[in-house]
């Protein structure tokens, strides 16, 4: 497929699979899985530097250099708009002025369900400060539209809860969102296996973002490859325009004439 790139904030990407970099057993596994996924946009988290940590340890940015990947700093773990905004200001400084970010403001630590009130507030501030905000949110089409109106560059609804692997629980809401917003809609959270990613893409989502589905697989590198294929297959199926579903068909695939034994 040529000329079917994902465009986010005016920049073009070949891969519609976005991946996280958390939960891997070591940097070698992180690197191998991300390479196998073919992803160009990868999320990272911002955390306090560990006082007393080994100063000779390689850093994540040495393993996954900004020259090779579009790094998407996130606000995972933030429960208020204020913390999320501060985290992303630090991220922009850390990444030399890089403005593309993933905003997520969580509502409770058990479900990790997004707090959309705080998310809307943070999005307003960040857009006003010149950030290009890809926003994790619930699958509420009204909130999705409000986030677009604020100026977010991608809407990233959950398919099911973060880390749950439950798959696409409400395809109808994803469709409602896609009918209402012009910016890319990227399923973020809930994908458990390759078919989930394919379903998201077949629905017409512009991309899929995942972390745990790859990192928590027994063989993360193999799952990363599977996800790459699933996203590509789902996209091509969407573009090809599937046949309509019907309970039964009066037209078999093989010719109805020329059968032997007829008079």
């Amino acid at each position, binding site marked *: 497929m040529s000329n079917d790139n994902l465009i986010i904030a005016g920049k073009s990407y070949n891969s519609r699979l976005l991946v996280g970099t*958390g939960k891997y057993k070591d940097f070698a596994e992180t690197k191998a899985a991300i390479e196998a996924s073919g992803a160009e946009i990868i999320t*990272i*988290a911002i955390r306090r*530097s560990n006082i007393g940590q080994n100063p000779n340890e390689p850093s994540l940015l040495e393993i996954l250099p900004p020259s090779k990947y579009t790094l998407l700093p996130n606000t995972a773990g933030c429960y208020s708009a204020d913390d999320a905004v*501060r985290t992303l200001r*630090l991220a922009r400084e*850390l990444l030399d002025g890089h403005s593309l970010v993933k905003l997520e403001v969580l509502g409770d630590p058990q479900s990790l369900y997004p707090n959309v009130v705080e998310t809307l507030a943070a999005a307003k501030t960040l857009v006003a400060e010149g950030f290009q905000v890809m926003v994790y949110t619930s699958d509420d089409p009204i909130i999705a539209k409000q986030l677009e109106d604020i100026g977010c560059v991608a809407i990233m609804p959950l398919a099911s809860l973060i880390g749950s692997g439950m798959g696409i629980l409400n395809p109808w809401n994803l469709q409602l969102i896609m009918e209402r917003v012009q910016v890319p809609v990227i399923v973020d959270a809930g994908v458990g296996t390759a078919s989930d990613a394919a379903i998201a893409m077949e629905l017409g989502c512009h991309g899929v973002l995942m972390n745990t589905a790859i990192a928590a697989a027994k063989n993360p590198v193999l799952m990363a490859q599977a996800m790459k294929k699933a996203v590509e297959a789902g996209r091509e199926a969407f573009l090809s325009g599937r046949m309509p579903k019907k309970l039964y068909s009066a037209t078999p695939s093989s010719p109805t004439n020329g059968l032997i034994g007829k008079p």
Partner: protein
Amino acid sequence: MISVSINGEARHFDMPISVATLLEQMQLGGKRIALERNGEIVPRGQFTQQMLSDGDKLEIVVAVGGG
């Protein structure tokens, strides 16, 4: 003596030091970090000029794996 909170931990210094000196002491000199002082970003270019004051709250962050 000045007391400064660094990533939530209290640290004490006999005399005021610059942000750059602090980072050297923490073996973070030249590392890719970002620093917030009392809620405001301190650009990398100001590390040598900015002197720590008593009661400062610093946050020093790095990039780590995350989803």
